[in-house]
């Protein structure tokens, strides 16, 4: 089995086989690292995917003459911290929603269930765009890599998806 620095050097030169081997060997390490840092929540796989995208974009910054582990670790640490920051912001926003009136947690659960249902019946492209851009709050570029859609297609899809959701929620039941 080739070493990480050698695989990365070949990946930088465009060797897809070496790159595939490198990424597949890295995934278990990343899962373990992220699991330890964010406490085994359901978001582990999402964060692992974000780290993989980050590694992909930053692959030019690795110097094969230097150790590989600190390079991966610093990118993974940054991504985990970013995830934790977004989670904190999200929990602060949730507090605003649930505090004003008693019983609003129940209302929120109902709204959440309705919203999940409304998203699930959207056409596939729109559903993917809404989930990646609005629920997971990924950037257009990240969402494009994950979905395989172009950024302009994602923009159109999320716009149409949100319009349908707005219509669905504004109609009287």
């Amino acid at each position, binding site marked *: 089995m080739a070493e990480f620095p050698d695989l990365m050097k070949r990946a*930088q030169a465009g060797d*897809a086989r070496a*790159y595939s081997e490198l990424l597949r060997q890295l995934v278990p390490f990343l899962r373990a690292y992220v699991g330890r840092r964010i406490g085994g929540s359901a978001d582990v796989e999402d964060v692992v995917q974000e780290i*993989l995208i*980050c590694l992909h*974009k*930053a692959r030019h*910054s690795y*110097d094969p003459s230097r150790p590989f582990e600190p390079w991966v670790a610093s990118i993974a640490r*940054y991504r985990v911290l970013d995830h934790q920051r977004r989670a904190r912001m999200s929990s602060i926003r949730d507090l605003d929603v649930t505090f004003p009136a008693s019983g609003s947690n129940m209302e929120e659960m109902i709204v959440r269930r309705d919203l999940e249902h409304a998203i699930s019946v959207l056409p596939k492209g729109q559903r993917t765009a809404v989930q990646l851009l609005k629920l997971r709050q990924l950037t257009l570029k990240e969402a494009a890599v994950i979905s395989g859609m172009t950024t302009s297609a994602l923009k159109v899809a999320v716009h149409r998806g949100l319009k349908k959701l707005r219509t669905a929620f504004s109609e009287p039941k």
Partner: protein
Amino acid sequence: MRTEDLLDRLVRDLRPVRPLTSTSIRLLGWLAVALPTLAFWTMLFGIRPDIEQRLADPRFLIETMAATATGICAAIAAIDSTVPGAPRWRALLPLPPLVLWLLSLGEGCLRILWEPTGTLLEAQWQCVSGIVLVSAIPGLALLFVLRRGVLLTSGITFCLGALSVSALAAAAMRLFHPVDASLLVLIWQFGTVVALSALAAIAGRRLRPFTIR
């Protein structure tokens, strides 16, 4: 999306990349732009008439050299901060010359307390505008160099970058702007350097421009 599918997409998306050049080469590239720019502004404003006298003063030499060393060390630290995996202690590289610069100014301030001149607190807004003006082109050049790397901690990187260009600008100003009272230099030149670095840190941390996502 399953992670397996993402891996397939990333592998399909693979293109050859040019590896990042070393910190020293990137630093030299930046200095090749920054130093001629500083020399240009110094020549344009004209070297101060008492330069020979000032160069004979050890305090002037220590202050100017400490400011220059702060600028260069901060540039090294800023460039290094865009290389994932680089030792994090390197962010502290500009600290020793920065402390020396501050101490040399502080020592001058203490001495001036015994020989007050009455002009110590006059406003020197031209120091602020001068540092901003002289920093502009080296700052843009440094931004270009930094963007080639990977911006993970943009607050730290921008703070070090602003410290670098403003400290070098302050050092250049010592050659053409005849303000020597330590308290004035401390407040208006060192103060501007600290303020610009703090602003850059806040802007970098809040706006996170060019960070990899």
